[in-house]
């Protein structure tokens, strides 16, 4: 083995405490970044996942101005011809006033978001139906699903209760219908329809006097990476219909922008952690250099050049960095694996979307490896400043 590498290794491994301390510093720096990633990126991705699954699909098609008047059947079947598309479904939204008599008391709720869905297509393109905690999804023209919060605000609406819904139509006329509660929706994390009421799309079209019109199409892909391609193809195929099509990244951007900068902040904290582990390495290596003053003098006496001494201690930085990066990455992957296997959730509700971001994992490991080397530069430089006469020291 190269004598400088051997010396670097021996010096480190014969000082177990220093080695463990330095490696631990790197390990912890990396682990913090991994844990942050699992939790905060996992949370972010979970929210993206839920927005996509419940509301926006992988592609969301709307009209540039107001409502889409093209027949929903033609749009849906156009999409479903494409191999990447799993399903597409029309939706229509409005705001409603609701009231209900419970135990002889009339309770009113205003400004409740209401969504019209196609019961047969929706369950293929969205997972909202899976959030029905009680009862079943909308199945008929007069059934309604209440979000758990809506149900609570209405004085504890239950499956089988009857609610009155008022929607203002396109001409400004109040349209009132009576519905029977078929189910209560409650999603973990609250990204679902917890604050919304869901009815049959044709009923809502009727009430809004918008026959044949659609608010949006939710398109679910079996290969989400093809979203941009499918979107572009769609827009090219319908150049004259004033369609607006957005991928999930685009349609959720506004909701996610704040979160994104929060993640950037947290990543920054992680990198500060890495920086402090670099300072730990500087301190530990300075101690090693100081403890080897005479031996460095001996090496210089028998002919080692400044450069050789520099290389020995930079090798130490590399060894610390390599072991630290290895152990830290292994620990981080272990934590990620654990989080994924146990379906770790945020606040015991929203299941995190845990993923292995190999690019980031490798980048983190490399960064800390390089940081360890940079950290070793100063102690190494200091070691080169020791003079050969140090070998003659009598104390």
């Amino acid at each position, binding site marked *: 083995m190269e*004598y400088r590498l*051997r*010396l670097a290794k*021996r*010096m480190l491994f*014969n000082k177990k405490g220093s080695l463990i301390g330095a490696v631990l510093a790197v390990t912890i720096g990396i682990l913090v970044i991994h844990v942050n990633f699992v939790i905060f990126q996992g949370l972010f991705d979970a929210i993206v996942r839920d927005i996509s699954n419940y509301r926006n699909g992988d592609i969301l098609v709307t009209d540039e101005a107001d409502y889409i008047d093209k027949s929903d059947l033609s749009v849906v079947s156009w999409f479903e011809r494409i191999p990447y598309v799993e399903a597409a479904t029309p939706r229509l939204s409005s705001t409603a006033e609701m009231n209900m008599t419970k135990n002889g008391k009339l309770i009113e709720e205003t400004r409740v978001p209401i969504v019209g869905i196609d019961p047969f297509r929706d369950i293929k393109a969205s997972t909202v139906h899976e959030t029905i905690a009680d009862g079943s999804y909308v199945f008929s023209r007069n059934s309604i699903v209440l979000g758990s919060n809506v149900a609570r605000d209405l004085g504890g609406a239950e499956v089988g209760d009857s609610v009155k819904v008022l929607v203002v139509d396109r001409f400004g006329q109040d349209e009132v219908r009576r519905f029977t509660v078929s189910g209560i929706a409650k999603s973990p994390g609250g990204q679902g329809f917890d604050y919304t009421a869901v009815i049959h799309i044709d009923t809502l079209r009727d009430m809004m006097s918008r026959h044949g019109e659609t608010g949006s199409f939710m398109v679910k892909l079996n290969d989400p990476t093809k979203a941009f391609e499918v979107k572009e193809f769609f827009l090219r195929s319908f150049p004259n219909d004033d369609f607006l099509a957005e991928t999930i990244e685009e349609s959720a951007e506004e909701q996610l922008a704040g979160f994104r900068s929060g993640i950037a902040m947290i990543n920054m904290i992680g990198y500060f952690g890495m920086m402090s582990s670099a300072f730990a390495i500087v301190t530990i290596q300075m101690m090693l250099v100081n403890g080897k003053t*005479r*031996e460095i003098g*001996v*090496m*210089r*006496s*028998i*002919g*080692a*050049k*400044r*450069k*050789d001494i520099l290389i020995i201690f930079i090798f130490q930085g590399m060894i610390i960095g390599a072991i630290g990066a290895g152990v830290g990455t292994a620990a981080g992957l272990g934590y990620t694996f654990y989080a994924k296997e146990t379906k770790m959730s945020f606040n015991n509700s929203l299941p995190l979307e845990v993923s292995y971001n190999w690019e980031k994992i490798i980048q983190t490991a490399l960064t800390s490896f390089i940081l360890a080397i940079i950290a070793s530069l100063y102690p190494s430089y200091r070691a080169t400043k020791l*003079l*050969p*006469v140090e*070998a*003659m*020291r*009598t104390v």
Partner: protein
Amino acid sequence: MTKVYGEGENKVKALDDATLSVEQGEIALIVGSSGSGKSTLLNMIGLLDRPTSGKIYIDGIDTTTLDDNKISSFRNKKLGFIFQFSNLLTDLTVLENVLLPRQIAGTNNNAEKEARDLLKAVGLEDQMNKRANKISGGQAQRAAIARGLINKPSIVLADEPTGNLDSVTSNTIVQLMKSMAKKLNQTFVIVTHDRQHFGDVDKVITIKDGKAFSGDMPSEMEVLAK
């Protein structure tokens, strides 16, 4: 050569125009009382430090003009060192310590065999693979002698090589150096307090107040030196 340490008030003239020469194959002893400038002289000859003024020629080369890298290289190839304390790198084995000057020189061919032979010659064949901090003081000095000889240097320099050893061990180390010098026609420059252990040698230089004198110390000084 002259060597002045410190500045102003704290100025110490450790060597004061000291002049000496040592021939190839000689054993030269440097003696003198404590603080007289023996170690300083050895540091200058060993190119571990530079004189304030004066010149040092080794193998006819004026070493005072060499830069740090050249001096390192020169120390590596032309000089061998035996110090009083902690000669060896404790992270390495005895054999690895002896090999080190060769590895620094980058001329590894046949090095291991030569190192083993040298270790055998100094009586350490059983200790070769021990870590350097697991052997006795006398054994460490034997290893240092072997290390000092591995690159076949022009001069082996030793600063009180027996200063840290008991009398019996001191004597064996002195005899070992003398026999190696004879066997290899190796030049030795040795600073010592153990003048009498060495007996008959080629040259003795006495240092007094930084000045070099040829020959043994006057006997009344020897008493002072103890």
